[in-house]
């Protein structure tokens, strides 16, 4: 069995491990590191439940082998909040809009949405639907997810303005 030493940054912390070549990044996160926030829904690259950020870009972690992530920076849902006790504006907006039910697709959704908001501070509904087009959700019909991402964009733009006062949905 081919084994490889890897070192990478996960949610800001350096980690080293010895992994078999065939171990996917998502299995490494979940089974080796116990970072179970990242989920698998298909393991063949369709559902998006395993979405993480790899060097800032959303990717499907079931389609990458852990060994390939050596030297990279990975962000998972566990690394989205500003600190261990809080939530990001996006996470909070998901709660505000009830943008989830079973929560299984949610981590992948959040990372896709997070990446969108990094690049587009005022996304249209179409931009949002495009950004999460590769994340399947079976519970919500997407409406409250789209609303939550729009709300987060709005809040972030207000937060960046001189007087910060987070809007609530009317």
């Amino acid at each position: 069995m081919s084994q490889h030493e890897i070192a990478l940054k996960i949610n800001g912390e350096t980690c080293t491990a010895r992994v078999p070549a065939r171990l996917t990044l998502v299995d490494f996160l979940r089974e080796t590191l116990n970072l179970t926030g990242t989920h698998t829904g298909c393991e063949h690259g369709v559902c998006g439940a395993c979405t993480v950020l790899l060097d800032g870009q959303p990717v499907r972690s079931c389609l990458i082998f852990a060994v390939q992530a050596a030297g990279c920076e990975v962000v998972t849902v566990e690394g989205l909040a500003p600190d261990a006790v809080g939530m990001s504006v996006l996470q909070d907006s998901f709660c505000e809009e009830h943008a989830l039910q079973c929560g299984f697709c949610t981590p992948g959704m959040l990372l896709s949405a997070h990446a969108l908001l990094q690049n587009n501070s005022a996304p249209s509904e179409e931009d949002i639907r495009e950004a999460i087009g590769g994340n399947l959700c079976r519970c919500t019909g997407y409406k409250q997810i789209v609303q939550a991402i729009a709300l987060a964009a709005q809040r972030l733009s207000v937060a960046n303005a001189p007087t910060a006062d987070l809007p609530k949905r009317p």
Partner: protein
Amino acid sequence: MKAVDFDYEQPRSVAETCRLLGETGREARLLAGGQTLAPLLAMRLARPAVVIDINRIEEFQGIDAEAESVVIRACTRQSRALADPIVQSRLPLLAKALSFVGHVQTRNRGTIGGSLANADPSAEIGLAALALDAEIEARSATASRRIPIGDFFISPMVTALAPDECLTVVRFPLPQGAVGTGFREASIRRSDFALAAVAVQLVLERGVCRSLAVSLGGAGATPVKLTAIEHKLLDTRLGDAELAEAGRLAHDAIDAVSDIHASAAHRRRIAGALTMRAIAEARDEALAGRA
């Protein structure tokens, strides 16, 4: 759904890649973006002894504008190509095609060369490359050669590349004149594999078509160039009658497959209609001088 055990190599140069590929005695697969290979591995439909990861090779990255062509190196990510100003301005057809490729998450990993070498009959990049008369550069440990795209696709998932060759570069020649492009695709959900897709690039001279390339994919075993349409429509003004004729030719020309998502007959109907729509799109674009 776990891959079979395999050895893993991570060469740092094209030469090293070619050397590894040339080593006989074990089945090797090149791993580029992995967006197709990884599912095949997971389902154990691919069972290589060694996986050669070419993601860390500098020489495989980047897009260059040359005088009469644009060169894209094999491992350039699709998302990077899509956002690239050279691609946007000089290869509008490729840019259109790229927007149909997968999702943002897969384009962030998937590569230009990987898609070509993978030869999925419904892949958009190969389809655009065919309409653009691209040229593939391939290297082995001992030689390198250029393969016209027309000779590249052999059958589903099979290309003209020898087992010890790797695709290094794809070169897109640049058209001159009042260029227009059209790309149309029909799929079931927005990002599903194409049931049929058509790529068109043409040049108009005072409204008359002086050069035309139409390629069609998704419907059969490989993308095909519809040269009969090109011959028929050249030197016309691409009016309704000509478009209808092109649709008929496309409908009749292709050797479509049947599966649960569409019958062969339906694929042919779609192909015919998309051909008309794509040519019209390209014509209108050329007329508007948008190219």
